């Protein structure tokens, strides 16, 4: 089922949780709502679930008006951040709940419910724990019970609020791969909220980046990562270096580097900021040309597949973060205190209101 969100606005006591949000989730996709805390992503998820109601705007399920449907009628599966398992019911009863509370006419027989629950518990690999109570399960197991419980009612949309937020790093990684695999198997339209960009990039088909109640950008992981629409998205998705400069004669001047800004000839003197990823920082021991910035190596973290550097610019004393492959690091033989020449590649320049 596809979800369409049109111009949704929501206020809490004068605070704009969401301001005119538009969003389309195509049927069968796994979409991540990514943003810092307080960006409105959970509110948006709860509005889609029918747990909150928008002040203005509308929600369409499969093109059908659903704005005023209650949570009970929406046929969504919701996985809560802290699982919200029924503590007085065991795993089996938790998963069966949604089936048992159906109106008598729609309710499956006891035997059907039992078969269905066991099938779901097999799917989430918890069959042998059917008799346990939530308090007796680990975080990862609770999360999977919550997922099985949400799937039991065969929802047309699955909504997950920070599904891996409360788990430790290793379990989190396992579970998110597992969620991706599960989604490839059952293909239910899914929307999950996260503040972890790595998680969003790894799991989602599409990423919606949110900030301060607005959608900043939406697109495939490659699109939002490689072509960030604005400085916020650039900053939020991965580490980034900022180089400040000015417009001069139709080009951005950043230190000794000049980047063409076609059509900005009339904006002389305007401030610009160039964004560069740490792996787009080229480091040399000797000067290669005039477009380089001199810096001192302040800190080296050499463990792992990439070596990370903290460099201090000699001109402005600003810190530059850089990443080199292991081979390049060995080849240069860098030591703390060395003077190097730095050349940023793939600069993305933003002026106050324009993106070039």
């Amino acid at each position, binding site marked *: 089922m596809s979800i369409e969100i049109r111009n949704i606005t929501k206020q809490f006591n004068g605070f704009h949780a969401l301001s005119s949000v538009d969003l389309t989730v195509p049927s069968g996709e796994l979409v991540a709502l990514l943003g810092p805390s307080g960006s409105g992503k959970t509110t948006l998820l709860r509005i889609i*679930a*029918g*747990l909150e109601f928008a002040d203005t705007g509308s929600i369409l399920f499969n093109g059908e008006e659903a704005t005023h449907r*209650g*949570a*009970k009628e*929406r046929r*969504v*599966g*919701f996985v*809560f951040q*802290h699982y*919200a*398992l*029924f*503590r*007085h019911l065991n795993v089996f009863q938790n998963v069966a*709940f*949604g089936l048992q*509370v*159906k109106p008598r006419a729609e309710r499956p027989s006891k035997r059907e419910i039992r078969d269905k629950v066991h099938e779901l518990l097999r799917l989430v690999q918890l069959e042998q724990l059917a008799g346990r*109570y939530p*308090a007796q399960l680990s975080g990862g197991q609770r999360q999977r019970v919550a997922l099985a*419980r*949400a799937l*039991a*009612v065969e929802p047309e949309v699955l909504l997950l609020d920070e599904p891996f937020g409360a788990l430790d790093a290793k379990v989190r990684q396992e579970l998110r791969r597992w969620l991706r695999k599960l989604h490839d198997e059952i293909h239910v339209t899914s929307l999950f909220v996260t503040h972890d960009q790595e998680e969003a990039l790894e799991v989602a088909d599409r990423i919606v980046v949110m900030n301060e109640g607005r959608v900043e950008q939406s697109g495939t992981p490659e699109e939002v990562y490689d072509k960030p629409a604005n400085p916020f998205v650039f900053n939020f998705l991965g580490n980034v270096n900022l180089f400040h400069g000015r417009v001069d004669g139709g080009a951005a001047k950043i230190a000794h580097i000049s980047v063409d800004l076609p059509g900005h000839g009339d904006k002389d003197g305007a401030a610009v900021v160039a964004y560069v990823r740490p792996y787009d920082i080229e480091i040399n021991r000797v000067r290669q040309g005039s477009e380089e910035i001199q810096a001192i190596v302040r800190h080296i973290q050499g463990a792992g597949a990439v070596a990370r550097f903290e460099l201090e610019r000699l001109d402005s004393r600003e810190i530059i973060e850089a990443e080199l492959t292991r081979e390049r690091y060995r080849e240069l033989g860098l030591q703390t205190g060395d003077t190097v020449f730095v050349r940023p590649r793939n600069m993305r320049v933003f002026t106050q209101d324009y993106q070039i």
Partner: protein
Amino acid sequence: MHLPGGLKKTANEKPSAHRLTEPAPVRWVLTGMALLFLGLFLVVPLASVFSQALEKGFGAYLAAIREPDALAAIKLTLIAAGISVPLNLVFGIAASWAVAKFDFRGKSLLITLIDLPFSVSPVISGLIFVLLFGLQGWIGEWLSANSFKIIFAVPGIVLATIFVTFPFVARELIPLMQSQGRDEEEAALVLGAGGFTTFFRVTLPNIKWGVLYGVILCNARAMGEFGAVSVVSGHIRGLTNTLPLHVEILYNEYNFAAAFAVASLLAFLALLTLVAKSIAEWKVREQISAE
């Protein structure tokens, strides 16, 4: 133990027990004081109630309890508790459900109102009803003209008991339900359960021990209430005397053995309450820690 330089101490080495407690004499003195206090103010009075009650033998004890006025007092006490406890149970659950699970205007006012009977002296509570329903009261004339009797009759006693025991269930449940949050109710809602189903299948099972705890306290107070009931009862023997009032009358008539015999019933109730309360308390704590 002393470690050279104090550097070799590792994480799995426990500090010796002595460092965490006071020296032995201090511990003995403190424990002894607590026990002495307990004995003086709880055990001795309790023992004396039972010994005084049985002073003239078991026969006299039974006779004092079986006496018609005593039986009437027991019956009235049971009626007052039997009406006020269920009413306060329903009210308490409804109020705490509203307070803990929903946001609305005037919520803090409601909480304050629930607490009101705690902050008012029981005698004043009784007086309020006399002022309302008494002969000189606001609607007293209309009541007597239509031959409704509230003050110095059973309805007054029940009303006063309800008022005094009003906060017990709600006060117990509000913090419990607030600590449990709304997540489970929301989960039930999304899974397609309606309001009633959610209440009976999710909310109520989660608070059942808290409910029991509140009911036990409410019942103990309902049966033991003296001040408010004393004001509205009129002390008519065999008609408007509850157990505590009956004890007072017997005592004022220097009928000590009978007074203590009846009092022992209340003391026995208190002991039962204590045991039931401990069990419920333990279950509530278990439920919270199961989080």
